């Protein structure tokens, strides 16, 4: 018996060592801030290791190609951000447990496994590892009814969608006799069974369950409630991480397993993408709670990113990956400010709390302005470049009208993003809020805004990175 090649799995192994040592260290350390520092340092080391560990191992079950490396980079940056912004927020709510960081890292391991899954078994297990940890994280503030409610809703719909995914996997297995993603794709191409009704049904099951995971309409119902009720730091974490992970498997499964059926799934995904953008952008107009507004905005952004999959080309896929990276920065930026306001005891989540922020905290308001511009997609921010590449991919794939629809919806999105800006700059404040930008959250906000502007004016290296990383 030969030992499998372990080099490609090194990042996951390192993360597992990190998580197990966290569990032990947690027993001895009373100051939980050190655990956050430990998580951040460990994840930074893993980011470095990710770039050196490539290859296919465990008989094709684990594929560490450049596609997965790009996504792993996103997940690890995401977990670092989440670990930093949680500290003060959870301390205020007496919920800063060591287990919180354990679960954050576990969820990240699940996402990393999903991104490099070469086998549907591994894909499912990675998904469950991520999902189970995220359910618990959503309910981590145990005395708060809202947090519990969010966790229960997330759990019920997440478990339901995994069951649907499993049935899709079992149909694929029955039709092709294999669980290996590449073998299934080859079998479908070789046998030419694109008219097999059960195969189409399996495709529908896959789209439904991935739709739940990326929060695409009409499977988005859970998103606003869960994003609203969960602790804000977790909302920031799960509006990027699990979504990017779901997009990673979306891209891999659909480009490798179902390329022969691309006619069918593009026709299924186009209405979903349009509906997602419509629901996200239009319902967001009516929100008065900033977390709910950002939840609907995250639905809308899932709709934009779906365009990259609809293009069904390498260009579209790399545009989607690039967009996920950009979305990571702008979304975390928006949530950092929400958390900073949350940390001031008197201020809630209402968008009216942002009134007159420019008077009391001009720098913070200016940074928020840049983030909101980026979420809208106004140049010279990163959001503009991300959308530009996505729309170009869709146009090149021959769906020019879809790009026009997407542009119209992004114009609608300007109303609710810029409403926050208007509140901050045009209105008088009701209450004086003092935000300090010299603590960790403030520094992180400055770094994120710098990245947003940097990618906005200089997108070439990131686009190249995503282009190198396609399947």
């Amino acid at each position: 018996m030969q030992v499998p090649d372990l080099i490609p799995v090194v990042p996951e192994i390192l993360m597992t060592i990190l998580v197990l040592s966290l569990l032990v260290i947690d027993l001895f350390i009373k100051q939980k801030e050190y655990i956050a520092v430990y998580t951040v340092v460990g994840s930074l080391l893993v980011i470095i290791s990710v770039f050196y560990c490539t290859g296919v191992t465990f008989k094709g079950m684990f594929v560490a190609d450049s596609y997965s490396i790009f996504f792993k980079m996103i997940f690890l940056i995401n977990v670092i951000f989440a670990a930093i912004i949680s500290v003060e927020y959870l301390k205020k709510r007496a919920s800063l447990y060591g287990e919180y960081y354990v679960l954050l890292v576990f969820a990240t391991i699940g996402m990393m496994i999903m991104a490099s899954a070469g086998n549907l078994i591994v894909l499912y297990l990675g998904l469950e590892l991520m999902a189970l940890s995220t359910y618990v994280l959503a309910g981590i503030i145990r005395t708060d009814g809202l947090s519990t409610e969010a966790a229960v809703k997330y759990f019920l719909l997440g478990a339901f969608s995994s069951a649907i995914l499993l049935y899709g996997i079992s149909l694929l297995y029955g039709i092709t006799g294999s669980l290996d993603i590449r073998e299934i794709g080859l079998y479908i191409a070789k046998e030419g069974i694109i008219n097999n009704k059960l195969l189409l049904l399996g495709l529908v099951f896959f789209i439904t369950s991935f739709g739940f995971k990326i929060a695409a309409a009409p499977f988005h119902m859970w998103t606003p409630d869960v994003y609203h009720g969960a602790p804000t730091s977790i909302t920031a974490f799960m509006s990027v991480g699990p979504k990017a992970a779901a997009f990673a498997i979306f891209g891999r499964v659909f480009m490798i397993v179902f390329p022969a059926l691309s006619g069918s799934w593009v026709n299924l995904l186009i209405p979903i993408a349009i509906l997602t953008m419509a629901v996200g952008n239009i319902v967001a107009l009516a929100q008065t709670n900033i977390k709910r507004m950002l939840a609907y905005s995250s639905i809308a952004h899932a709709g934009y990113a779906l365009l990259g999959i609809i293009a069904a080309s390498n260009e579209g896929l790399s545009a989607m990956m690039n967009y996920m990276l950009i979305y990571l920065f702008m979304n975390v930026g928006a949530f950092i400010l929400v958390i900073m306001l949350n940390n001031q005891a008197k201020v809630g989540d209402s968008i009216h709390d942002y009134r007159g922020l420019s008077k009391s905290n001009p720098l913070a308001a200016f940074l928020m302005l840049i983030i909101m511009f980026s979420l809208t997609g106004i140049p010279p921010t990163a959001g503009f470049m991300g959308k530009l590449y996505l729309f170009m991919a869709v146009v090149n794939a021959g769906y020019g009208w879809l790009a026009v629809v997407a542009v119209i919806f992004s114009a609608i999105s300007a109303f609710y993003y810029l409403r926050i800006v208007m509140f901050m700059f045009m209105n008088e404040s009701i209450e004086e809020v003092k935000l300090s930008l010299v603590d960790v959250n403030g520094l992180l906000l400055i770094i994120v805004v710098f990245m947003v502007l940097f990618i906005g004016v200089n997108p070439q290296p990131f686009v190249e990175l995503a282009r190198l990383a396609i399947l």
Partner: protein
Amino acid sequence: MLNQIIFGYFAVTMISLALIVITRKNIMHSIVYMLILFFHIAGLYLFLNAEFLAAIQIIVYAGAIMVLFLFVIMLLNLREELRKSRFAITWPIGAIFVVLSAVMIIISVFGNRFANVGNVKISDIEKVGHTVAVGKLLFVEYLFPFEVASLILLVAIVGAIVLAKKEIK
């Protein structure tokens, strides 16, 4: 002929048990019927030459998961259920949706071509025993998923304690 009769018995019983499970008012009754259903599923696995899975089905599903459900229900001492209506108001919509999609899908099942590619013969499995066959595959070829499953169980332990413990220091 005997095969058909046995399968027919299992199919009819399992479907009616499943219907009974989801319509009981008292959760306790549901769980007891669910246990009977699990024994039937284990019987079906035996029928399909999967002895190890039949054992696991009874040990883990019936012996652990359902008992966990029973424990929680008794712990919570819920009497509320018996007074409230069991279905949501929208249940007819759910029923119509489910029946329509089930009928559509079931029609498309018949006459489909399933894969026929495998190289494992039942006689091979019978020679070494199903447990050995599954074990060899699990620890050699599917080692990686097995390790990931261990992480999932660890998450379940940590998560359940974080959520349900009275006080965390």
